[in-house]
C-alpha cells in the first residue's frame, strides 16, 4: 500500500507531511503546480473536488483536509512512532480542541499576514496595512491564551506532543521567517520555549530541508 501525498511543497500540506515523517512512514509525493492552476485540472478535481491541497492517497483510499489527514495517519499508525493523539479519551479531547483552535483562531489571522507580507510582493502588490495591523492584533490575542496554557503544560494538549502542536508548524515558520514577526513568539516566554521544542524536532527539520518552497 503506497502512501502518496500531493503538493508537498505547500504549507498546509506540510501538516500532513510532518505527521508522516513523525510516524516513520515511507511515502511518495506528487507535485501540483498551484501557480499554473494545476489543482483545477480534472484529474486533480477527481481526487479533491474543492481543488485544494493536500490530498493523501492510501491505496484505494483517499482523504483530504490537512488536519483530517493528520488524524487518519495518527490513528492508523497509532502503534508506531510517538502517539500524537493522547492516551485517554480526555487527552484525545484536548488534542481535538487545540487542533480546532489552530484551525479557527490561529490560522486565519496568520494566513492573512502570510498572504499580505510574503506573497503580495511577488505580484508586485503593496500589502494592505490595515489588514496586517488587525491580523497582528488578533494573532497576538490568541498567542496570549497560548502563553497561559503553555505555562501550565509543556505542550498544548498536555505534557505530550500531539497533532495540535504539529499543526502549527508550517505557518508559524512563515511568522518567524519571511513575515518578520518572530518577536510575537520570542516575547512570550512559554510560547517561545514551546516553539523551539517543536520546530527543532527531527521530523520538522526534515520537512524544511526536503520540501522547501522556492520563493
Amino acid at each position: 500500500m503506497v502512501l502518496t501525498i500531493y503538493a508537498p511543497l505547500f504549507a498546509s500540506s506540510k501538516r500532513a507531511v510532518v505527521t508522516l515523517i513523525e510516524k516513520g512512514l515511507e511515502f511518495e509525493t506528487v507535485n501540483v503546480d498551484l501557480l499554473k492552476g494545476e489543482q483545477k485540472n480534472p484529474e486533480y478535481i477527481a481526487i479533491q473536488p474543492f481543488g485544494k491541497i493536500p490530498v493523501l492517497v492510501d491505496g484505494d483510499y483517499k482523504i483530504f483536509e490537512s488536519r483530517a489527514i493528520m488524524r487518519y495517519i495518527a490513528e492508523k499508525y497509532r502503534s508506531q512512532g510517538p502517539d500524537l493523539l493522547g492516551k485517554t479519551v480526555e487527552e484525545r479531547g484536548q488534542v481535538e480542541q487545540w487542533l480546532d483552535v489552530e484551525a479557527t483562531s490561529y490560522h486565519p489571522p496568520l494566513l492573512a499576514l502570510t498572504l499580505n507580507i510574503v506573497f503580495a510582493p511577488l505580484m508586485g502588490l503593496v500589502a494592505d496595512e490595515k489588514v496586517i495591523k488587525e491580523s497582528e492584533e488578533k494573532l497576538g490575542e490568541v498567542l496570549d491564551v497560548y502563553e497561559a496554557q503553555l505555562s501550565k503544560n509543556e505542550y498544548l494538549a498536555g505534557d505530550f506532543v500531539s497533532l495540535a502542536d504539529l499543526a502549527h508548524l508550517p505557518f508559524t515558520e512563515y511568522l518567524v521567517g519571511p513575515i518578520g514577526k518572530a518577536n510575537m513568539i520570542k516575547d512570550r516566554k512559554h510560547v517561545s520555549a514551546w516553539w523551539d521544542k517543536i520546530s527543532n524536532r527531527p521530523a520538522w527539520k526534515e520537512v524544511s530541508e526536503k520540501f522547501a518552497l522556492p520563493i
Partner: protein
Amino acid sequence: MRTIQRRLPFFTHSFSSPHLPCINSPSLLLSSPSHSHSTFNIRSKSSPIIMAAVIKVHGVPMSTATMRVLAALYEKDLQFELIPVDMRVGAHKQEPYLSLNPFGQVPALQDGDLTLFESRAITSYIAEEYSDKGEKLTCPGCKKVKATTKVWVEVEGQQFDPIASKIAFERIFKGMFGMTTDPAAVKDLEDKLVKVLDIYEARLAKSPFLACDCFTLADLHHLPAIHYLMGTDSKTLFESRPKVSEWVKKITARPAWSKVVALQKQ
C-alpha cells in the same frame, strides 16, 4: 568650465515606420563618460581579473517584477547571473539587500558599478544600453514612433498591471491557501480589466503589437501578469477577444519568455 563630451551621433535606424509619417532625423545619443562600459572587473580575494562585468540580477523567479527583467535579458541574449534573494528569511528587507534597493523589493540589477531597481527602469536601461544586441525592444523609426512605445509602456504600468496583479493575487495565492477568493472583489477587478482589454482589442486590430510592428517593452512588460492569469479562470477575458488572444499567444510563445518560465521549475 565643464565640458560635455559627446560621442559621435549614430543612427539607430534609417527607415521610418509605415504607420506614422516621420521626419528622417537621426537620433543623437549623448553618452556620459562616467558610465563607460567597464571591460575590466577586478575582483577581490581569490578571483583573477575577468574581462567583462557580468550582469547580476538579485531576485526570485516567482516574482513578476523579476520575471520582467529576466525576459528583457533573455531577449537581448545577455549573459547574467541570477542571485537568489532568500525572501523566506526576509533577506530582501535587510542589509545587504537594502543597499541595492532601499525599498526592500525585488529585483535589483547590477551592471558593473551601476545598481538599478524598479523593473521597468531596468528593462528600459537594458533596451537602451544594449540596443545593438538581440531583439530591439523599441520601435524602429523616428521620435514619434518611439514616443508611441512610451505611451503603451505607461499603459501597461498604469492601467493594466495594477488590476491584473490584484486578480492574479486573488486567484492564485488565495487559491494556494485554500481560501475562497472573494467573488465580488474578483468580479469588480475583472470588470475593470475588461475595459482595458477592449481598448487593447481595438488597438491590436490596427497594430500587430501594442506600440508598432515590432515586439517592444510595451508588450514584454505584460508577460508576467498574463502568464499567471492564463493559469486561472480569468484567462477567458483574454481568450474571448480575438486580437488580444492572438497577441497573447504570440508574446507568450517567444523563446526568451519560455526560458524565464523554465527558471520557475528549477
